[in-house]
């Protein structure tokens, strides 16, 4: 029996559809083998050490500060960005007049279209000074006794990086939260209104609690974005290395895993220090992937219900 065009088309497209899988596999394999030398030399202390010295005479590589830098800046992004995004999502889905809904959601989405390197440029020459003058100096002056606000207000530090990340995750988190809120069945709202609840009460007590797990998923997806974001952070975080990069204060230069690779990898001169950067890349990959898998499971599970309507 001759092979039909349909069969060929099916098989060829199925093979091409595996492109993403192949890229993932290549990445995982390459980073795993590439980081083998550093993991052999440093062992567990690659993850727990804080010293980073590529000088061949005293080579030592500990990646803990960058993991901490990533987690702290991402945490700031979530603390600031998620409430803002949720506010936007609630406003757009529950309160705004229809006429402004489209233009506003559109403006918010444009935030996602701005290239990361332009956020970095703006952060480096503009935003940094706002952060320094209006946030860091007062915080340091009045709350400087708290360790988190110790240091010299300079604007190229953990706080600025975290705030830029907060801005950058807003479009993702707000648009997914909006979809989640839209998926909340209308009878839930009507039921609440019918017993005399105000809009605030309806939203805070019924709608948000109904969409809770989806909103949580949206936040996790935002966290994934923040963890992997490279250029904007690289340009404003101050790029310190070793123990100096440990984010003990918001007003301290630091380093994330992504920014470490972006700012330093080109200068890696010997195989071992290059392997160290690959090791950091592997850590970033594992962290980013696990966050995204969790987020996708949470978001898709919630939105599936709605998506079934397509014929």
């Amino acid at each position, binding site marked *: 029996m001759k092979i039909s065009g349909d069969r060929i088309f099916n098989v060829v497209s*199925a093979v091409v559809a*595996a492109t993403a899988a192949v890229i993932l596999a290549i990445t995982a394999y390459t980073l795993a083998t590439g980081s083998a030398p550093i993991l052999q030399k440093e062992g567990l202390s690659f993850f727990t050490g804080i010293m980073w010295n590529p000088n061949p005479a005293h080579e030592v590589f500990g990646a803990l500060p960058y993991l901490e830098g990533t987690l702290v800046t991402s945490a700031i992004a979530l603390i600031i960005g998620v409430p803002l995004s949720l506010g936007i999502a609630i406003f757009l889905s529950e309160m705004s007049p229809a006429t402004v809904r489209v233009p506003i959601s559109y403006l918010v989405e444009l935030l996602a279209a*701005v290239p990361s390197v*332009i956020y970095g440029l703006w952060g480096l020459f503009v935003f940094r000074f706002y952060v320094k003058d209006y946030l860091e100096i007062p915080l340091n002056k009045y709350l400087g006794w708290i360790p988190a606000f110790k240091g010299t207000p300079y604007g190229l530090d953990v706080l600025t990086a975290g705030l830029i990340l907060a801005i950058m995750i807003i479009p993702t988190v707000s648009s997914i939260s909006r979809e989640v809120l839209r998926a909340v069945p209308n009878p839930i709202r009507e039921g609440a209104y019918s017993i005399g609840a105000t809009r605030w009460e309806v939203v805070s007590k019924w709608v948000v609690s109904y969409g809770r797990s989806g909103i949580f998923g949206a936040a996790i997806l935002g966290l994934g974005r923040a963890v992997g974001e490279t250029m904007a952070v690289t340009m404003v975080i101050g790029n310190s290395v070793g123990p100096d990069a440990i984010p003990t204060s918001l007003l301290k230069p630091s380093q994330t895993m992504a920014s470490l690779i*972006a700012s330093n990898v080109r200068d890696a001169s010997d195989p071992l220090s290059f392997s160290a*950067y690959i090791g950091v890349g592997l850590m970033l990959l594992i962290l980013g992937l696990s966050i995204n898998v969790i987020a996708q499971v949470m978001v898709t599970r919630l939105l599936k219900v709605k998506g079934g309507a397509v014929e």
Partner: protein
Amino acid sequence: MSNYAVRRFKDRLFFFLGIACIVLAVLPLGSILLEVIVKGLPTLSLNFLTTVPGPGGANVGGIGPAIQGSLILIGLTSLIGIPLGVLSGIYLAEYGDAPYARVMRSLNDVLTEFPSIVVGLTVFLVVVLKVSGSVGLGFSPLSGAIALSFILIPIVARTAEEAIKLVPNALREASMALGVRKWRTTLSIVLSVAKAGLVTGILLAVARVAGETAPLILTVLGNTHFFEGFNEPLAALPLQIYQDALSADPGIQARAWGAALILILVVLSLNIVVRLATRGRMGNSGRK
């Protein structure tokens, strides 16, 4: 009724809080656009857009190679990424119920959210490095395009899948009932109906990729000259912005803003045009 007054007050407060959130989110966008225009506009001239960058000081030069490099990269990336992405999307939309397709769809979604610096690192190891086990292309346009297409493919696949799924099943059935084969139905009927959505998705994806910087650091490296061949490093707008921004020379910093203005003009105008066009189309077809 004081309880009612409190409740009403809370409700109003809530409304204004919502507006405050939007203002706080849109403010950075406004500031970015304003600064890029104010700081970038003075640098613009035909000369700036067409000449090579100078060493700084009195000779700042232009961003010609960066513009050229970005165009080359976008072209090569589209050539690699769009066919693979669209074909993946077709498969996911038309044969997407199989367990295999579900797995591929999830992996595609995972790749969409990949840290872009990791993509650059991988392509550097697999494609750029001239050692055994690597393709050994060196810092070159093709290396950069491969890295960028790793980012483009999953986005295009996803938007293509969505656009194709929007095509009513009735049209597939109409074609199949004429005795047209499924592959022919897909390529000639389904794709042509999905075309507008496909083009929209592809343009937005290309706009996104045009601004990517991190994957380029380790793959095209940057260059102060115009295209020198397929085995040589290449300049690119986002790289130019990154490198110039880190300079202490005010003239070179201004060059970064000029390059940023060009990049943001391209990226945002693509976004705006595409979305306005989409809205117009939806308004028309929404009747039937």
